């Protein structure tokens, strides 16, 4: 089990990096850019085998940031390629991330319908 303080440190540092990217670059970085950047970089690092050691060290501190979602997609894909070959390259990602994606769509839709934006 990962200790709580490791998750706190890991998650805090990943968010700190995002904040510095937003504050120190001249370009107008929106939350959307941060999300796309994190999932992509997490997926690339995972493909290179560099993200799993981070997950082993800080647990939810690495899986809860969106880079962990990219890691989940890539690890699912790699596992499926081992068992199914080429088909796995296209099916493994969604299979691994199915719960997260479905929850995001369903809970997101329900919340958006039930609540109204405040001004």
């Amino acid at each position, binding site marked *: 089990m990962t200790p709580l303080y490791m998750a*706190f440190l890991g998650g805090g540092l990943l968010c700190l990096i995002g904040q510095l990217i937003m504050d120190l670059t001249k370009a107008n970085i929106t939350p959307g850019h941060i*999300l796309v950047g994190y999932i992509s970089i997490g997926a690339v690092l995972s493909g290179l085998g560099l993200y799993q050691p981070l997950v082993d060290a800080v647990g939810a501190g690495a899986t809860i940031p969106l880079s962990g979602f990219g890691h989940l997609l890539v690890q699912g894909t790699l596992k499926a390629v081992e068992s199914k070959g080429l088909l796995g390259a296209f099916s493994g990602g969604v299979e691994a991330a199915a719960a997260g994606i479905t929850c995001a769509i369903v809970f997101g839709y329900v919340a958006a319908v039930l609540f109204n934006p405040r001004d």
Partner: protein
Amino acid sequence: MNVDAKQMKKIEMQEYQNLVDQIKPKPDILKNSIWAFMVGGLICGFAQVLVNYLLSLGMSRIDASSAVSCIMIFLAAFFTGIGVYDELGKRAGAGSIVPITGFANAIVASAMEYKREGYIFGVGARIFSVAGPTLVFGFAVAVVVGLIKVFLSS
């Protein structure tokens, strides 16, 4: 336009830009960083408490991680709906964007705004205005990594 007028215009533009730079609020980098670190850390720490609890119930590591993602997404969707998450986001910045709760927040916040366009092509479509690009790039990288592995192992 003669050369003088052109030069004048250039100077005016430069002065205007200087004025904009003066007035534009400079981000307080240290304060923003501390907020992002604390809030991001607390969100991940809370998630770790849930993961450890599910593991102690005998759930597998992968299932516990998925279940906690779902719980965090649910909580973020709810707190975005009642308007709390965006208040937090004003201070926490990346601390509330980078965790998966920020992904759920982006989904609900953009979908809510377009309710007047209807529940199908308003809310239903706008759910993906931020989530769409995120998933596109996540899947694209995952498929490329998968294909590289297929070719390396064949």
